[in-house]
């Protein structure tokens, strides 16, 4: 299998789907000549022209509305919102229109849009540019919220999203674009709403999505050295949520930590913890714990930024403690 970056995998998915289906088009700020803020769409305007790679003004509501309206007429728009922080400006179109159109019109309409956007902290991007907001959209029935962690998943899930008939928020991650991984050759499509066990283990389940999956895997490595076998479940989708896979894992390991970027209170991890305790109550030897970012707007200074972000060490330490392998306690 060829190795490529997460960026390249997304790029290839877009390109292949545009080649396959003339109704697929891209829109967003700076996605043409500029190549996209994170360069995912680089070169596509040369191949497909400005009609299918539509550059827009700084009007996030207009972008999502354009996508939704076009999708109601049969097109398959894929919009890029430069970062998830800016979606707040246009989210009315996503939440009050796209997510509701199929249902509130009694099945008479569809809104097959994909909104791609990176979430998460970069390096010192500070409080208005470092947010993790996807759980807001995962709260909304009518939406799908997909969030791949690897290049292979990025490609397979983006292609599936573009072919799917539901409105989809496709969450990328600022710090994953340069991550490399193997991607299957040929047509590679993954099912939406299916979690993936990224590493098998016996003692504790680490549940994560997007970039936090890599932290979970790193923690699992470190735990292995301590003789602890951690299973890593990558949710891949916040809605639909494949809680069955999570619960099955916890029924086996009897311990769980949920790990994600962003804030703890009312964050995505709360839902996972609530569901685990509900569906695997008697299997749990210890409460489900959550490890997340600190509850502050992300500060600019590196010293504070570091202190505010979740750390692999914390996962290792808590896992060891939960399993009683930590002599010191916390």
């Amino acid at each position, binding site marked *: 299998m060829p190795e490529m970056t997460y960026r390249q995998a997304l790029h290839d998915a877009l390109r292949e789907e545009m080649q396959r289906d003339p109704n697929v088009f891209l829109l967003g700020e700076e996605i043409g000549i500029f190549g996209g803020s994170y360069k995912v769409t680089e070169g596509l305007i040369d191949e497909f022209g400005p009609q299918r790679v539509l550059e827009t*003004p700084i009007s996030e509501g207009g972008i999502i*509305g354009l996508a939704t*309206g076009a999708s109601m007429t049969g097109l398959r728009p894929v919009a890029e919102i430069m970062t998830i922080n800016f979606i707040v400006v246009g989210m009315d179109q996503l939440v009050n*229109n796209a997510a509701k159109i199929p249902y509130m019109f*009694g099945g008479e309409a569809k809104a097959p849009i994909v909104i791609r956007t990176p979430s998460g902290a970069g390096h010192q991007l500070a409080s208005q540019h470092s947010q993790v907001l996807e759980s807001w959209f995962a709260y909304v029935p009518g939406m799908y919220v997909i969030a791949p962690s690897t290049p292979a998943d990025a490609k397979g899930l983006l292609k599936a999203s573009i072919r799917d*008939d*539901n409105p989809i928020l496709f969450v990328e991650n600022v710090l994953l674009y340069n991550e490399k991984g193997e991607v299957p050759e040929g047509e590679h499509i993954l099912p939406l709403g*299916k979690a993936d066990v990224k590493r098998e283990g016996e003692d504790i389940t680490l549940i994560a999505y997007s970039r936090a999956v890599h932290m979970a895997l790193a923690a699992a490595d470190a735990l292995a050295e301590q003789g602890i076998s951690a299973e890593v479940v990558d949710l891949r989708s916040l809605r639909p949520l494949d809680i069955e896979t999570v619960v099955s894992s916890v029924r086996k390991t009897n311990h769980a930590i949920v790990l994600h970027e962003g804030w703890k209170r009312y964050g995505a991890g709360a839902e996972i913890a609530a569901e685990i305790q509900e569906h695997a*109550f008697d299997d749990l030897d210890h409460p489900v714990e959550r490890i997340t970012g600190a509850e502050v707007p992300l500060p600019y200074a590196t010293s504070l930024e570091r202190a505010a972000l979740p750390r692999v060490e914390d996962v290792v330490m808590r896992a060891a403690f939960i399993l009683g392998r930590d002599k010191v306690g916390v």
Partner: protein
Amino acid sequence: MVKEVERNRLQPHTTQNAPVEFHESRQELHDMLAQMILIRHFEDKVYEMYTRAKIGGYCHMNHGEEATIIGAIRPLRPQDWIISFYREHGHILARGTEPKYVMAELFGREDGVARGRGGSMHLFDASRRFLGGYGIVAGQMPLAIGVGYSTKYRDADEVTLLLTGDGAMANGASHETLNMIGIYHLPVITLIVNNLYGMGTTVERSAANPDLWKRGEMYNMWGTQVDGMDVMQVRRTMEEAMDRARHGQPSLIEAITYRYRGHSVADAARYRTPEEVQAWRGADPIERFYRQLLEAEVVTEQDRQEIERQVDATVQQAVDFADASPQPDPSGLFDYLYVNPPPTLNEPETPDA
């Protein structure tokens, strides 16, 4: 023909009643009148049904706005699109959707145009390219960029009519929409149904410059104001706009009209005087059009009586139909939420429950 009317907005202004040049067929003119009357009677019945608790929720009616509706929607061809807002009973009727399905929706019944899921604010008719009523003020507007862009993308001969209120023009979504329509030269005609109020707020208090049509210039589109109580003026303006749209020029039309009743059924409209309402009722669009048709000898008094009779029957049938239509079965609560959802949407079984 279209006057850039300068007026004291709270006074009805009857534009020059120069003899109207009709080049429509008799049948068409007759149908226009009939549809205007249908909308009026339909709304009267809606009011009645609301007070009898057959209809619930927020319910906004079109009394007084019939000329803007018929004038703008009648010239549309089958391939043209409409996007509307919550005050849209008349809009969907003008597009030809059968009143009984509309009434059934208002009653919240399975035979409604949105299968009872939408209600008064969310009417829809895919077969007539009526892309819905929306409840967030100005929230429907950005959708029109996409519909217009789709037309351009497919290189189709279609026009999109975007309907909006005057109050909505204060919202940021209106700006992004018109700007993008202007940038991409989309075949979209934006009709501001300026009934002088957004709830209790006059357009003078919601717009720094209340001449809304003048914004056309800033959006690189044709901007014009029209007497929204004169259906033929609206129609001619719309025809010109459609022509321009097909040549890649969008339009912004401000039609000055008046809603006779409160903002919604529940609103007693204490923010305006009975005299003001009376004055506008005196410029009634149906009576005016009827007089024009009488003068031109297109219709007779008998025709009018026959229309009224038929309309009453239609409206009554709509009520009977709606009443007989079943409430949606609760088992269908999750229908239409997702297209082909994966099984993971279900919850796992809890062993101890």
